[in-house]
């Protein structure tokens, strides 16, 4: 019995390994191609690089303003996340802790927003951004990312705040803290796992977003990493090596963050899927 179990396990691992290779192969291909010359990529796309060739990265930074694109992407992601983490948990806290007609309405109002696709309202939205002077600069995408995260974020935070015992907050209130202090000093630090999930899921979404920065940011200056890569595809049709170098720069941070915060990914997806 035990012996056959062991065999079953080994077979399963072999199958899993083969599938893992299949899933990882395109990423592997991108990484090795980033270190090959264009000639090598075209001659034999599957071969490993013949030497540690980093000229592609030098060309990438010399021939385009990729530094500007990286900077823009980092700014968009970080500023949006900070604002999301200041704004969203507070509304979720009020909704869960102080039930009233207003908060109940707000919860359902936000939930309804989950269904609205960005493509439906992007034309009127851009017109509105123009009217407010938010079109053509980073403030526009930031404010749209924050507004767009309210619905899902509130949902996620509400489900976590319910699990935090009231007694802890009451003690702080008796000590003379106002609700604002109670929330930021006592409750918010206990919401770490939820904040982690939200930061990672939203951060990844903003980091990888294409359509909004492509349409909202001015085309005569560097936009974001994804927008630059998309424009390289047309511009450097003959230089895949440069595009691969840019691709690797876009992938690496996502993979590092994933490895560091794996649990949060799982939690965010499961709560989001079952409650949404």
């Amino acid at each position: 019995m035990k012996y056959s179990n062991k065999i079953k396990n080994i077979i399963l691992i072999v199958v899993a390994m083969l599938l893992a290779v299949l899933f990882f192969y395109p990423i592997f291909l991108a990484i090795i191609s980033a270190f090959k010359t264009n000639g090598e990529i075209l001659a034999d796309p599957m071969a490993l690089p013949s030497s540690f060739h980093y000229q592609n990265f030098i060309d990438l930074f010399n021939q385009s303003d990729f530094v500007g694109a990286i900077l823009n992407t980092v700014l968009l992601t970080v500023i949006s996340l900070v604002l999301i983490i200041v704004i969203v948990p507070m509304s979720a806290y009020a909704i869960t802790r102080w039930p009233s007609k207003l908060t109940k309405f707000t919860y359902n109002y936000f939930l309804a927003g989950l269904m609205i696709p960005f493509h439906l309202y992007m034309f009127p939205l851009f017109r509105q951004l123009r009217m407010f002077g938010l079109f053509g600069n980073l403030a526009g995408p930031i404010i749209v990312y924050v507004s767009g995260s309210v619905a899902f974020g509130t949902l996620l935070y509400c489900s976590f705040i319910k699990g935090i015992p009231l007694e802890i907050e009451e003690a702080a209130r008796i000590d003379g803290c106002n609700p604002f202090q109670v929330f930021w000093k006592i409750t918010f630090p206990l919401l770490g796992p939820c904040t982690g999930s939200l930061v990672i899921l939203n951060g990844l979404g903003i980091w990888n977003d294409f359509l909004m920065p492509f349409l909202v940011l001015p085309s005569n200056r560097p936009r974001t990493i994804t927008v630059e890569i998309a424009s390289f595809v047309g511009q450097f049709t003959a230089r895949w090596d440069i595009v691969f170098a840019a691709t690797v720069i876009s992938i690496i941070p996502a993979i590092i963050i994933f490895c560091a915060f794996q649990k949060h990914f799982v939690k965010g997806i499961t709560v989001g899927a079952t409650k949404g």
Partner: protein
Amino acid sequence: MEKVKKKSNIDKYTLLFIAPAFLLFTVFLVIPAASSVYYSFTSWDGINPNINFIGLDNYREIFKSVRFRNALRNTIFLTVFVSLFENAIALGLALLVDQIKWFSNFFRSAYYLPVLISGIVSGFIWMTMFNYNFGVINGLLRSIGLGNMTQDWLGNPAFALISVGIVLIWRGAGYYMIIYLASLQSVSPELLEAASIDGASAIQKFRRITLPLISGAFTISFTLSLINGLRVFDQINVMTDGGPGFATETIVYLLFNVGFREGRQGFGTAVGMVLFLMIIILNTIQQKFLRSREVEL
């Protein structure tokens, strides 16, 4: 007395806590979404401040347009094709990861890795893999003696949409695997053990216990993948730009093309309304399904 004071206090704080999220959500999501109903009845070009109301003309055009019908067909094909394979593969991966005793965390991460990659980057990597002359896929076919099966995968209208679909499946399966896995791990081991003692085979256990218990996850995951399929844009943009011809022009891509390239944002918004309607229908079906299952349990 104190109670009254406390109550008004809390109301002030309720407003203070909710206002920023409420205002942003209203101004930058609800108002543009609501005004798109109006824009869908106009011939707005996106630039001209004079907006002409043309009634139902945009919708009439949508239902008569051959191009819209083509986009609708492409969207339905791509969405159903991707969702079916995505869910079948995701369920398979979840069962595998759930069964494995060693390194299951490692495998879960490996299958999830493509989810981290942007639509643009995944589209670019696969575009090079699908390339006729220098791509890995044709290279592999040639090296195993199937050179006659090589294709211009993205340039041939018969294969372009399927090729885009493969990229979406590769990138999406890991996401739905997480949903199935969470559901599988909530199936109690005692139940399965009791069934084993009663002499149930592995297949019987799967069909009679596991499958009914994860049916909720199935409904959620399938609906999510359908809705996400309807919204695909990035991969099409980088891989085919809607072509060859109109072979990969989906509803979202049509909306982008008419709105930004042809200056017909009123018509584009009307197309967006049709997309929204499709999402509402899918959501309603999901809710019905989930509720009827709950009754059964």
